[in-house]
């Protein structure tokens, strides 16, 4: 966001993009990370599912803050999508291996 006289300028496109990043991108990252975490936790499956799900909301909160703290809306999206895709890429083969 640009700085003018110390107060931030917030063009509506920037705001809309960050809101979408927080809501959708944040959810996507949280969902994929939760799934990834469920797969790698060395616990019985119902325990792993619960443990990962409980942690997820903390991650989502962080993602929302990131979307607005990032220095540009592009960076906001990248910071959420790249790890999300990373989690998916790792989780898919894991899922195929672990789930009968």
């Amino acid at each position: 966001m640009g700085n003018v006289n110390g107060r931030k300028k917030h063009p509506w496109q920037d705001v809309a993009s960050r809101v979408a990043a927080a809501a959708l991108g944040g959810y996507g990252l949280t969902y994929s990370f939760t799934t990834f975490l469920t797969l790698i936790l060395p616990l019985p499956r119902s325990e792993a599912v619960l443990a990962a799900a409980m942690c997820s909301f903390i991650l989502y909160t962080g993602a929302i803050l990131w979307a607005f703290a990032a220095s540009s809306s592009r960076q906001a999206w990248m910071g959420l999508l790249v790890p999300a895709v990373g989690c998916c890429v790792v989780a898919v083969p894991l899922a195929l291996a672990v789930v009968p």
Partner: protein
Amino acid sequence: MKDSFTQSMDWLHTWGGLVFGWLLFVIFLTGTLTVFDKEITYWMQPELHRLTPSPVNIQAAADQLARLAPAADDWWIELPHFRTPELTISWQDLDQGQQEQRKLDPATGEIMTVRGTRGGEFFYRFHYQLHLDRLGTWVVGAAAMVMLAALATGIVIHHRIFKDFFAFRPQASLQRSWLDAHNATGVLMLPFHVVITFTGLVIFWMIYMPGGVDVFYEGEFGNMLAEVEQRVDRKRTGTPASLASLAALEQRAKIQWNGGVTEWIQVRHPGDLHATVDVVRRADDRLALISDRVTFDGTTGDVLKVWKGEGPAFLTYSVLIGLHYLWFDHATIRWLYFFMGLTGSVMIATGSLLWVIKRRESHTSNHSEYRIVESLNIAVVAGLLVAVAAFFWSNRLWPSDVPGRAVWEMRTFFLVWCLCAVHACLRRDCSKAWKEQLVAAAALFALLPLLNLVTTDSHLFVTLAVCDWRLAGVDLTCLAVGGSLFGAAWRIGRQAVPAQQSISSSIVEAGP
């Protein structure tokens, strides 16, 4: 960079707080009422007030079920306890039709005629569903996530936390004193606000974050539930057999638990050879919300399964949801939750008020810019209070024999709320609108004990005399709330004048 981060968090806090503040106020206030949902339900059913504590006659309940629902596939018997003195039986038929319910005198098993009402459960369901079923649950979940973000950003921008908390300046400028109120209520109960919001989300993790379920349980939470709860599921055989004594089974279950009280008994396929009886323990003496269960063969009385919750993640989850649901039976803690919930509601409301006041004091332009926000503030904060009071009034005023009475009570709530919203939009003078609605709410709450006196035998003169604090508590709280709201209305009347002065004086300064 640090300044920029704080500025971004300030922006997010302000706008996230504004857009979701109205929703969050509603969720917090109805949640606060839900702390005493059972007391409210009891207060709203005066026909039950004659019940006195007595040993439970489970056999009589079973006889009623056998008489009323011999062919039903599922029977439930909910045992009475301190907060809910009646015994409730319900059943569901083979074709999965409507579930039917009757309230019984726990000592005699006689059916009691009670006026139809949703009671405190109306606020409970509204609190997490907003009367919109699954969609409502999603909306509440989204609001809860914004609340977590608002709490986190609030901490970031008010990092002078302790200094802020000890500075409450009610005589300072309007904006300053509302800001102080917002900070104080936020900081004072910060652990509560964080925990209650986080645990609220955790309760519905299976709706909001089902990734693990999708991977391991084919997306069906029912599969996971079956695995965790280990319910014994036996099919109906069609061979009739007599049901064992439920009272005896209940006694044997209690032995398994080494102390503890039964909450409910479920009988599946009663009268069949494969009848299965679940006796479930009340989870009110521990923080973890786990209902231990003993499952019996309904014909022979053999123990089929003894289930207690286990596993570190499951126990953690149970404690987290226990912290939110507060089934833990402790009067002082319950009142603390009520007080903290009110503080949270005040924090949210002052946040929305602050948004308007900050802009009103800083420039003279566009009344319409913040007029919408101000109207919404009045409609949501004051309007909801009026509607809640109206809900209680409707419980005493709607005749007992009106069909669909419970629905009419809810309709009264929504109608009154709508009227308040219309009033908030049409009234030109906002501070008068605030005052009028707050006075209306105050009057309705303060006069409720009087209405009680006129319409029932469970009014304060009776309940205080016999020290029935559950009932007296509702009346007394209404009196206290009414008094506080009168005080708030009076205060707003006083504070309107300085604000107008500052607007007119800045117009003079701006000058020709």
